[in-house]
């Protein structure tokens, strides 16, 4: 464990902005994709029944 405190972890040795943007954007894209597929399936299935 190399992080003394939570602020140190967030700072990422001064590169926090870059690191957290990368990981944040990736997480956002993947979550968004899952939601989009989920909604697409729901929409397709509901129209299928009607």
């Amino acid at each position: 464990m190399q992080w003394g405190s939570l602020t140190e972890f967030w700072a990422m040795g001064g590169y926090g902005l870059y690191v957290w943007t990368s990981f944040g954007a990736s997480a956002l894209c993947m979550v968004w994709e899952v939601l989009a597929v989920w909604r697409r399936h729901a929409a397709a299935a509901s129209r299928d029944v009607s």
Partner: protein
Amino acid sequence: MSFTGINWFKYSSPQAFHPLAGRMIPWFSAAALVLIGVGLYIGFFVAPTDFQQGDAYRIIFVHVPAAWMSMFLYVIMAAWAGLGLGLNARPSFMMAQAIAPTGAMFTFLALLTGSMWGKPTWGAWWVWDARLTSELILLFQYIGIILLRASIDDLRRADRASAVFALVGVVNVPIIYFSVRWWNTLHQGASVSMTASPKMAATMVTAMLVMTLGFWMYSIAVTLARMRCVIVERERQPAWGKNASIQEVAEAR
């Protein structure tokens, strides 16, 4: 046509594949969550700080897996497309259709995280490096395939036309990679090399590989889920309805 006791061809029909995919998705999703969790833990808490790049290097734990996935997925998509063209198999085309958006997303992420890594390391958001350029062209090809499919109303033509373009693109990307490398040796100005990466600690490699595996599982889960959407959506097509003539159904297959 049985193969080690199991009738694999049974699952090549969309109606049989739909429930099978439904059973498989939770397992792959769980595997993805666990692997990405473990990968992030190793990446952030076990892997040491790089003495040259500081903590900015940790971006590679998402950048490299995303870049690898973007290329793997393209090759797999093209393989399904080729199989579809060769065997005239509709499910193969549907697989290719299901893979494309995920591949495009990973390509976009690879470019975004690449520039996030490039800014602190090289001092520039974008460099005309061979890998970055071919990744950009890969994104254009993904978008081209998705748009080509979207602008053709006839499903059979949409399947086949996008398959042909996917296959042409497989030849194009390596050519672009090597041509940009060659081009860079000519223009010595921007001689930032991405290949001269510092030696990586074993834990760094482990984190990267675990993350890649996690992304694989994620891709499989999302692709299967999208495949289910595609199956349901296509069942609503006229050729699949109960009133369709035999000839129409035969054509659709």
